[in-house]
């Protein structure tokens, strides 16, 4: 578990770059440390765990139920505003408060959001879908029922593809798919604040009636990492579409995980539900913990019990009598005499879908020849930014990268290193967005041009970047001149320095001549020191090697 914890303790973006061990649990480090317990995802993605006897593997099964709050101005069935953090009960209409005599009126924008999402996830869009009432009692559900689409939802049978690294280095990414059973429109409930001290619950209905898309996924995943990766990709897709801002911390994306384990060849085990997950890191952690807990419990001869399943029963449903079926059209079935505002055309929406993240990533790889994992990181980091700020879909890292590439002769493959390693670490260190970067794409391109023309070394370039970061308004060239970072162009002078270093390091020279090539780096370092970083390390290496072989 320690490895899993270490993995998820890093930032969201860090999960991809600094994976140490995929789903591996070290013996003795878990919550129930007991003997050898290695849990690892095998190449096919199935997770195997050696039980006490080491003979019977367990296969974990993970399914997700996701509620995404629709990004709209007003609620699903009423005209009150959708807004996070407002004075209690200020965004509540009579319908939301379930006062008698009020009726639901469907918000067109919410339907469009659901259709967009369904199309982006390769779903079949049901041209006719129905609304139902799901009855249950809770203080934050004033009507005593929730309007949902249990029987015939708006979209069914889709899929979500996501990427994972299959080894410890970020070098090999594999694509996995999880099936989407259905997407349905439903109402959100209000919020309950439990005041145990005074034995009461305070209810705020601001959230009651906000539109949600419930996405039900088939149990195609096998561990916390896969669940986290799928949710990340979904989040990115929703943000790209604009159908939901999908910020987990603000409750715009809620994930419940269903977890069970079984032996190969046997039927699925009893599943438990993991709820109240408020971040992607915690999702991975919680799922893995639950898998481990179930394996322990079953391994000790216990059983898995499920107390929340009562909610899931087929009882308590009835059709929503106040809403006729929702009819959607496409280009072929478009009615002739209807008011445009009353018609939703699936094909029209499909034509206007933005480029999905997977398409964007591919385009970057194709256009610039960068590696898929770099393309991935570019977009993932942008996603983190979107989560932390209220402004989604700002021009960000991918655009910055493209702007630099346009303005420099350096190959994109090399530029990407500067973006992901240097620029990104500065931004993170100072908690800045790309827009707030003191180093513009123009400045960075300028600096990289100096490097490309071999006027400075890469070490010097890093120094210049550090200076530019201070934002004092100097150009790269000015900084280079000020700090005397220009590369020594005089070959003779360089040769002399190399010779001096060789003469001064007899032991190292002997070691190199004896075959220890690594010591050469030390000599190169010494030359760099003598030249105050103004020598081209490649050239220095050549010169030293030449001299040493004489």
């Amino acid at each position, binding site marked *: 578990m320690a490895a899993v914890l270490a993995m998820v303790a890093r930032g969201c973006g860090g999960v991809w770059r600094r994976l140490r061990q995929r789903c591996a649990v070290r013996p003795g480090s878990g919550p129930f440390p007991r003997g050898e317990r290695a849990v690892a995802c095998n190449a096919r993605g199935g997770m195997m765990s050696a039980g006490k006897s080491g003979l019977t593997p367990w296969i974990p099964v993970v399914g997700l139920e996701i509620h995404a709050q629709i990004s709209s101005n007003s609620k699903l069935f009423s005209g009150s505003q959708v807004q996070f953090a407002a004075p209690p009960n200020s965004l*509540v209409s009579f319908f939301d408060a379930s006062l008698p005599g009020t009726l639901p009126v*469907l918000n*067109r924008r919410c339907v469009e959001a659901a259709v967009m999402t369904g199309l982006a996830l390769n779903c079949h869009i049901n041209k006719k879908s*129905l609304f139902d009432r799901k009855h249950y009692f809770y203080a934050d559900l004033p009507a005593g029922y929730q309007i949902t689409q249990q029987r015939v939802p708006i979209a069914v049978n889709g899929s979500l593809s996501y990427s994972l690294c299959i080894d410890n280095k970020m070098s090999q990414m594999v694509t996995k798919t999880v099936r989407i059973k259905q997407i349905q429109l439903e109402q959100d409930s209000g919020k309950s604040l439990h005041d145990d001290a005074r034995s*009461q*619950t305070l209810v705020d209905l601001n959230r009651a009636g906000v539109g949600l898309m419930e996405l039900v996924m088939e149990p195609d995943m096998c561990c916390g990492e896969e669940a986290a990766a799928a949710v990340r990709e979904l989040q990115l897709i929703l943000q790209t579409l604009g159908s939901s801002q999908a910020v987990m911390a603000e409750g715009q994306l809620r994930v419940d995980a269903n977890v069970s384990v079984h032996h190969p060849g046997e039927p699925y085990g009893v599943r438990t539900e993991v709820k109240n997950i408020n971040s992607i890191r915690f999702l991975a952690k919680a799922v893995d913990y639950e898998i481990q807990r179930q394996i322990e419990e079953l391994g000790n001869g216990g059983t898995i019990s499920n107390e929340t399943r009562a909610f899931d029963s*087929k009882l308590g449903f*009835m059709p929503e009598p106040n809403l*006729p079926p929702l009819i959607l059209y496409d280009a072929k079935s478009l009615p002739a005499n209807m008011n445009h505002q009353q018609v939703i055309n699936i094909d029209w929406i499909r034509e206007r879908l933005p480029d999905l993240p997977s398409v964007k990533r591919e385009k970057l790889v194709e256009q610039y020849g960068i590696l898929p994992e770099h393309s991935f990181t570019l977009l993932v980091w942008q996603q983190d930014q979107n989560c932390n700020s209220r402004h989604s879909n700002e021009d960000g890292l991918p655009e910055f990268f493209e702007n630099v590439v346009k303005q420099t002769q350096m190959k994109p493959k090399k530029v990407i290193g500067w973006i992901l390693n240097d620029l990104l670490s500065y931004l993170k260190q100072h908690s800045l967005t790309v827009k707030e970067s003191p180093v513009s794409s123009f400045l960075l391109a300028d600096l990289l041009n100096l490097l490309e023309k071999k006027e400075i070394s890469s070490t010097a370039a890093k120094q210049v970047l550090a200076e530019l970061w201070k934002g004092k308004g100097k150009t790269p060239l000015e900084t280079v001149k000020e700090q005397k970072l220009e590369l020594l162009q005089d070959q003779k002078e360089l040769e002399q320095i190399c010779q001096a270093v060789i003469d001064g390091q007899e032991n190292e020279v002997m070691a190199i001549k004896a075959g220890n090539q690594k010591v050469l780096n030390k000599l190169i370092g010494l030359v760099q020191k003598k030249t105050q970083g103004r020598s081209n390390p490649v050239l220095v290496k050549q010169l030293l090697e030449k001299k040493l072989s004489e």
Partner: protein
Amino acid sequence: MRVLSLGRWLRAGRVPPREPASRPSGHRHSGHRPQGPPQELPQGPSQVPPQKVSVEVLEHLEHLALVDFRDSEGVERLQKAIQFADQLHEVNTDGVEPMDSVLEDRCLYLREDDVTEGNCTKELLENARETVEEYFVAPPGNIPLVKLEGQKTFLQGSK
């Protein structure tokens, strides 16, 4: 109008007068029915065995509807209510699509996404007997139903 899906569940194990295939329904039943003794067609209360409703289903119903079938009379009344509703099965609905609502041929009106309501906190709170700083006040969570010891005895037909 379709009755609450309760009806089908409570008729534990009974065989409907017609084949299920002849009644197309939009319901997605998982197919698992609560266990119960097989039942005969309703021909009068004398022929119907006392327990049609299993304990699990009853408890579940109580939880869901917050109704307390406190005594055998309550349970009996429930069973009678189900029998009464079962009369609907005497109608032949072969090849007829279930109707959800008399509005089914109407157009579902789509509203523009504009903010037109809200900001009536004071009015809303006036309806509440108790409020705390603009919050409604409710009892703490769902109070768990007390399972009376005697209840199980009634259901086992010990009366």
